[in-house]
């Protein structure tokens, strides 16, 4: 594993976060209602900032997030702002948000996030 890779195991209340520097992929999956979301997501935000600053390669986000509490929503808004800035300076950015076909509300909420983003943002059904 690359030293710059990230693998934060998920818990019942926090998502599994995995980042692959060479592949240029960041994955998040699960529910997110941790008590310390800003602390918990700091390594991920740092990884993203580093990657955007120090690599020229494209970046792809794969999200399979279900429930997000308010502070997690805030963190995701920060992530998307960061991506938006990078995208506007010419970086190749893409995002896919997978949702369980049995839970369309998750797709609707992903759509709410999408409204503020101009980079490619796909919302895909998936059988979990």
């Amino acid at each position, binding site marked *: 594993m690359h030293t710059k890779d990230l693998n934060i195991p998920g818990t019942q209340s926090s998502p599994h976060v995995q980042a692959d520097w060479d592949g240029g992929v960041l994955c998040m999956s699960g529910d997110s209602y941790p008590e310390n979301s800003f602390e918990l997501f700091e390594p991920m935000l740092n990884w993203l900032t580093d990657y955007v600053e120090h690599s020229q390669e494209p970046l792809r986000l794969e999200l399979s997030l279900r429930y997000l509490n308010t502070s997690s929503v805030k963190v995701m*808004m920060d992530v998307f702002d960061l991506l938006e800035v990078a995208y506007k300076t010419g970086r190749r950015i893409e995002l896919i948000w997978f949702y369980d076909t049995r839970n369309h509300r998750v797709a609707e909420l992903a759509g709410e996030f999408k409204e*503020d983003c101009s980079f490619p943002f796909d919302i895909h059904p998936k059988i979990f």
Partner: protein
Amino acid sequence: MNRRLSPRQILQRAEGLLVEHSTDAASLYVALSNMVQLYRDQCERLERVSQVADGYQAAVRDDAKMKIQSHKRRMERLAHISDGYHDLVHELNLSLSTAVMEDPLTGLANRRRIDVALSEEVSRARRTGRAFSLILLDIDHFKYVNDTYGHPTGDLVLKEVASALIQCVRDYDICSRWGGEEFLVLLPESSLDDTRIIVDRIQAAIRAIEISHGQATIRITASFGVAFHVLGEDHPDTLLRADQALMEGKSSGRNCIVFQS
């Protein structure tokens, strides 16, 4: 004025003439006109400086306003999306509580739900003095239906009985699947006459059920035990009497309604 003097030189010359008490009109004229020019230049400059400062202040103010507006918008987005997630959890809670209280096959109240309703009815009866009645019914020879036509047909029979029950009762009565092929109907604030009308209606509706299976048409009957709550007792006591009445009906040939003795 041939030579362009610096403000300092203009001042020095004018001060020099004042110190000397000079009365030389020509020198005084030059000094004074230089002073006038200097004064005009300074006024103009001051004007320009204050214009720049005002513009700068306005820019800072606009910038702050924009920042506040963008923060406000962000907060609103955050609250809006967060509300969405709250709704999602709320809906999930509702469907879970339905699942916990409902019999999945028939959609009737399950045993947990009717237990809660029975306790509530006991309290209500105690409060209002108006007692409830219970109808416990069991489909006759249900095992035969299952063994002969298969379990899917047995399930269909249960569903048909459930919808017959729903159609026969009043809005505030509660129909439940008590177990296997047994159903319990709770009739709040009901007299003997009210109960008799409803149980007769249910019996007729169940007798009218016809289920096609290949060439065969399946018809069913049920046995009924009816009991009335006595103020002051707990619901298991009432239930016990309904069960005893049902057992009596079963042992005396089924397909009948037995009121508690």
